[in-house]
């Protein structure tokens, strides 16, 4: 089992290294993702944001504009995620009034036998 896990880990690393060879040099302003137009001719999202963030929302911080406006729905989802986490903690951790079997090892033992 351990060996399989090691192999998985190694292949994971190898795949990553292999993939990284295809990436453009870091910081290269001409990389596909930084271009004004994508190879297929659609808008390059990133440069669109840089150009139009202030014009669209009168806000200097582009990240805020993207976060709350351009991709606001993602942020709503993100809030929902954290709300979900809160609900789960409530659900999982709050003690139930009726269920106290962790204080009654005898009963748990009886359950285990059946």
């Amino acid at each position, binding site marked *: 089992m351990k060996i399989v896990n090691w192999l998985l880990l190694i292949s994971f690393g190898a795949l990553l290294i292999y993939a990284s060879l295809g990436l453009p040099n870091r*910081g290269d302003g001409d990389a596909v993702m930084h271009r004004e137009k994508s190879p297929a001719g659609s808008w390059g999202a990133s440069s669109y944001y840089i150009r139009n963030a202030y014009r669209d929302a009168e806000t200097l*911080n582009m*990240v*805020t504009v993207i976060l709350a406006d351009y991709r606001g729905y993602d942020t709503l989802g993100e809030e929902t995620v954290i709300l979900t986490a809160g609900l789960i903690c409530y659900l999982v951790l709050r003690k139930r009034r009726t269920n106290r079997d962790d204080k009654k090892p005898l009963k748990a033992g009886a359950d285990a036998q059946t």
Partner: protein
Amino acid sequence: MYWEIEALLFVFLIITALISLYIKDLLAAVVTLSAFSFISALIYTVMGAIDVGFTEAVVGAGVTGIFFVVLIFQTSRRSGD
């Protein structure tokens, strides 16, 4: 962009990551993990992602650290590995 700082920070980052995984005292591991988060926040900032760095500093070094400590107080401090 100062790539020398970046490289140095990366070395620290990897070291803290390894320490926090290998140290047996969980509380120490968590403290190291906070340091890890903080260093990564610095790297984000160096890379120009101030927002992300800010968040990581607040969350990773702050809130997650506190949660981890609570976890350890609720459970046990020793770890087998």
